[in-house]
């Protein structure tokens, strides 16, 4: 090996790189190829949250022009429950219209 010397070994390395088409970089200069080799992670990150899917409300809206009725079981259950509450007198109070009258305000403030 001593016959060849440093210069010739580097030349050998260069030729070897040419033959096998690898990068010849004896000084170890940073070329930033590391960045180019990285994979893009955007698609994976974007798909984290589930996308919006069609809901029952959408179906009702879609079929309304054709006069088709879609069963909304959860909504029906809710309405039924509200009716039952009202019958027991436990329903939500009626919504007030306009500002409360003076008499009510006094009563409300009294503690």
């Amino acid at each position, binding site marked *: 090996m001593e016959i060849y010397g440093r210069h010739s070994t580097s030349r050998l390395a260069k030729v070897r790189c040419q033959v096998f088409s690898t990068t010849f970089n004896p000084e170890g*200069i*940073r*070329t*930033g190829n*590391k*960045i*180019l080799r*990285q994979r*893009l*992670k*955007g*698609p994976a*990150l*974007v798909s*984290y*949250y*589930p*996308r*919006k*899917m069609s809901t029952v409300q959408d179906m009702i809206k879609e079929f309304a022009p054709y006069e088709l009725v879609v069963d909304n079981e959860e909504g029906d259950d809710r309405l039924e429950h509200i009716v039952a509450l009202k019958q027991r007198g436990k329903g939500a109070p009626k919504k007030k219209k306009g500002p409360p009258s003076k008499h009510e305000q006094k009563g409300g403030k009294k503690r």
Partner: protein
Amino acid sequence: MSMFRAKKFDLGCFVNIKTIRDHSKRKAFEAFETQRQALRYCIRNQTLPARTRAEAQLQLTQMHCYTRPTQIRNRCILGGKGRGVLRDFKMTRFNFRMQALEGNIPGVKKASW
């Protein structure tokens, strides 16, 4: 920022301003990822002239903060919480526990060994 937000609402999970924000950050990051990588490449490449590299650095710092990957945080898809989220299920520990006990997560059951 509102310019990155989707014009039409497109989330199917628990919706919260925080989840919407995070989602728009993700989308912004995806849109600008190649540009960021290109700039990063220019900065790291020592064979380029120093001026180009400095320019690339400036450009990278001046990009909108929503295009940064560090802004993204995994949030719970059932409650929007940002802490204690299990990556495997995208849920907070409590939501995960409730779902697992109900048997909604395939294959997960109570362990004892």
